[in-house]
C-alpha cells in the first residue's frame, strides 16, 4: 500500500513539474509576444497591449464557468465526488480570471476613457458574474459536510449558469438606453494582433489546466485525509 502510494505520488509529481514548466514557458512567450511582437495600436498606444491578457482572461473564465456547470450537473447525475472537486477547482479559477479581467480593465480604461470604471454593459455584467461566483465559493466554506456541500453548491452553480445570459441581457438592454462611452471599433484588426491574442489565450488556458489539475489533486487529498481521520476515530485510535 505504502509503496503504491509512493510511486503514484512520484509520477503525479513529474506531471506537476512538467505542467508548471510548460505553463511558465508559454506564459513568458505570451508576455514577450504581447509586449514586443504585436504592433502598437495607433490611437490608444502602448496601453492597448493590456488587451492581450485582459480579453483572454475572460475567455478562459468562461471555459472555467462552463467546466463548473458541467461538473455540477455531472455530480447531481452520478454523485461521484470527483465531479464536485472539478467544479470547485474550476470555480476558483473562474473567479481568479474574472478578477484579472476586472482589474486589467480599469487600468486600460483610465488613460483611454478618462475614468477607471464607466459602468458600461460588459464590465457591469462581468462584475455581477464575479459576485455570483464569489458567493458560490463562500457558500462552500460555510457547509461542512462534504456530500451536503457538493449537493447544495451544485444547485447554486446551475442556477448561476442560468443567470449568466439573463444578467448580460438585462444589463446590456439597460445600458443601451443610457449614455455610455463610445468604444472605438474600427472593425480592423491587424492579423498579427489577432495571432498574439490567440497565443496569449493559449497560454492562459494552459495555466488554467495546470492549476485546475493541481487544485483537483489537493481536493482529492483532503477528502482522503478526512476519510482516514474518520476511519481512525471509528477504530478508536
Amino acid at each position, binding site marked *: 500500500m505504502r509503496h503504491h502510494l509512493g510511486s503514484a505520488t512520484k509520477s503525479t509529481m513529474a506531471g506537476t513539474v512538467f505542467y508548471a514548466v510548460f505553463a511558465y514557458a508559454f506564459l513568458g512567450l505570451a508576455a514577450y509576444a504581447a509586449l514586443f511582437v504585436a504592433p502598437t495600436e495607433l490611437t490608444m498606444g502602448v496601453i492597448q497591449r493590456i488587451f492581450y491578457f485582459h480579453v483572454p482572461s475572460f475567455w478562459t473564465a468562461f471555459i472555467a464557468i462552463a467546466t463548473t456547470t458541467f461538473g455540477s450537473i455531472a455530480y*447531481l447525475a452520478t454523485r461521484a465526488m470527483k465531479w464536485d472537486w472539478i467544479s470547485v477547482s474550476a470555480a476558483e479559477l473562474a473567479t481568479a480570471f474574472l478578477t484579472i479581467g476586472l482589474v486589467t480593465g480599469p487600468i486600460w480604461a483610465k488613460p483611454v476613457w478618462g475614468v477607471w470604471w464607466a459602468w458600461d454593459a460588459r464590465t457591469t455584467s462581468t462584475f*455581477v*458574474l464575479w*459576485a*455570483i461566483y464569489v*458567493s*458560490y465559493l*463562500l*457558500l462552500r466554506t*460555510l*457547509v*461542512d459536510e462534504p456530500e*451536503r456541500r457538493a*449537493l*447544495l453548491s*451544485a*444547485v*447554486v452553480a*446551475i*442556477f*448561476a449558469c*442560468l*443567470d449568466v445570459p*439573463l*444578467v448580460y*441581457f*438585462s*444589463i446590456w*438592454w*439597460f445600458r443601451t*438606453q443610457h449614455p455610455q462611452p463610445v468604444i472605438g471599433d474600427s472593425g480592423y484588426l491587424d492579423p498579427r494582433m489577432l495571432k498574439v491574442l490567440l497565443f496569449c489565450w493559449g497560454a492562459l488556458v494552459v495555466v488554467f489546466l495546470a492549476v485546475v489539475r493541481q487544485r483537483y489533486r489537493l481536493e482529492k487529498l483532503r477528502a482522503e485525509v478526512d476519510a482516514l481521520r474518520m476511519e481512525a476515530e471509528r477504530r478508536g485510535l
Partner: protein
Amino acid sequence: MSLTRSTSVILSKELRVELRSRELLSTTLVFVLLVLVLFSFTFDPTSAEARRFGPGLLWLGLLFASSLMLQPSFVREQANDTLSALRMTPIKPFAILLGKIASNLLFLFFVELTLLPIFAALYNLSILPVLGRLLLVLFLGTVGLATTGTVFSAITAQARLRELLLPLLLFPIVAPVLIASSEATVGLLSPAAALDRVWLVFLIAFDVVFLTAAWLFGEYLFEE
C-alpha cells in the same frame, strides 16, 4: 396527491402559521417603510428625481426585505425538525418548494400592496392612472424574487452564517429582476406612462427559467 392539491396544502399551512403569529408580515412592513424613509433622507428628491429614482429605491427596499423575510421560510422548520416530517408525507418535494414559493409570493405581494400608497404619498407620485400595469410589474418581479429567494433560503438554511449568506447569494442572482422591474416602473411613472414591452417579456422569461429550474432541481434541496 396531485401537485396542485399538495401545493395548496403546504400553502395553507404556511398561511396559517403566519396568520397565527403575524410576526413576519408586520416586521417586514415596518422594515421596508423605514428603508424608504431613510432613502428619502439621503437623497432629498425633487419630484422629477422622485419619478426617476423612486422606483429603484422601492425595488431595492423590497429586495432587502425579501432577503430578511425569506429566511424563516426554512429556518422555521428546523426548530422542531418539521421539514423531516414534511418529507415523510406522500408529497413531492417540488410541491413543498412550490407551496413555500407561493406563500412567500403572497406575503411579499401583500407587503407591496400595503406599501404602494405610502410610497406614492412619500415620494409624491401619482400611481392611480397606471395602477393595473404597475401591479402586473410588481407581481412578475415578485415571482422572480420569491422563486430564487425560496430556493436559496432552502440552501442557506443548511449552512452556517445563513443570515449573511442568503443576501450574498440572492442579490447578484436577482440583479436582472431588480433592473427589469425598476426600469419598467420608471417607465410607468414617467410623464409618458409607458410600459416597455421588453422588460415585461424579460420578467416573464426570468420567472419561467427559474420556476423550471426549481422544478428540475428542487428535490435535491430536501435530501437528508
